[in-house]
């Protein structure tokens, strides 16, 4: 695939992610913060988000497996996940977190378990999509091109 095609593919892909609600304008904000002094800024922040999210998802799983669930603890983890997903613009993950927190407040175990499943799913989707997008960006850069905005 030639450079122009790659660039077109990236723009289309990225647009679809916004369109489908995977990303919101906060992601755009991050892109705008990236410059020549820090050309990997977005990838770095997103990588931090991946690490953080995986840790939180594990903590959530453990917390919800307990005999007597500590909903405050669960809520604290969801709050963190909601925060970091919001900071990078991972809108669908953030939305599930909002519902998740409501279930925590109600101390609704079933609701929480359902949300955990959902948030895992949304997280894995956005992770895959972002990684694909980064790969495309890398291909463009390696072909000597620049990332279209």
């Amino acid at each position, binding site marked *: 695939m030639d450079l122009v095609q790659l660039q077109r593919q990236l723009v289309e892909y990225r647009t679809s992610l916004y369109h489908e609600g995977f990303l919101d304008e906060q992601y755009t904000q991050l892109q705008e*913060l990236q410059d020549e002094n820090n050309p990997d800024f977005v990838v770095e922040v997103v990588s931090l988000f991946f690490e953080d999210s995986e840790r939180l998802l594990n903590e959530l799983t453990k917390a919800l497996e307990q005999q007597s669930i500590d909903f405050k603890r669960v809520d604290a983890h969801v709050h*963190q996940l909601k925060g970091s997903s*919001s*900071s990078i*613009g991972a809108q669908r993950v953030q939305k599930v977190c909002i519902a998740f927190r409501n279930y925590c407040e109600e101390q609704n175990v079933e609701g929480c378990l359902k949300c955990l499943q959902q948030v895992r799913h949304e997280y894995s989707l956005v992770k895959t999509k972002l990684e694909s997008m980064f790969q495309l960006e890398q291909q463009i850069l390696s072909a000597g091109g620049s990332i279209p905005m």
Partner: protein
Amino acid sequence: MEAAAAAVLPSGSSQELHVLAVDDSYVDRKVIEKLLKISSCKVTAVESGARALQFLGLDGEKGSLGFDGLKVNLIMTDYSMPGMTGYELLKKIKRSSAFREIPVVIMSSENILTRIDSCLEEGAEEFLVKPVKLSDVRRLMKDCVLRGETEGNAGRRFDKRKFEDDNHNHTPSLSSSSSSTPSPPSSPSTTAPFEGDVATSELVSSSPPYSSKRAKLHGHD
């Protein structure tokens, strides 16, 4: 008065603002650090209120000099943190004679009126709803500059605050500044690099004049 991300001293030389950012989230620390660096600030990012107090040397006699000798001109802290919350950190800072003049900005993902009120009452300059944007940071920089450029308002602030408090009790709904305050267009993001020594000037830490933004927040015009 030009909007710029630097405090301008009367002598004409510029000084970078040094911001202490406090947030328990790695992601948010990285983002706020970038937002501030892009706005030509020096940044120290720490993960907790305890670390922030440590950096300020609150228990020592150093004044607002951090370990590297740089004065802190602004503190931006997340509200919800384990251990010490941003609110508790704010109180500690405002109750310390050495640091009470440092403007403190609270950041929170939750736009809760009572929370905003309590923070402002404890002396927070502003309450930003997360995720924090570049436009929020630019607006803050402008306010810090205005504050830094006016000397001799030392006595006035406390009077103003009392005035505010009296009126504050009567004001109706208060929304977060980042969403409701119509800010004037901010200056272009390309700011000139700063030369000159990072002097431990008293100017930037002098008592802030009555912030017009505060007036807006309190519904005055």
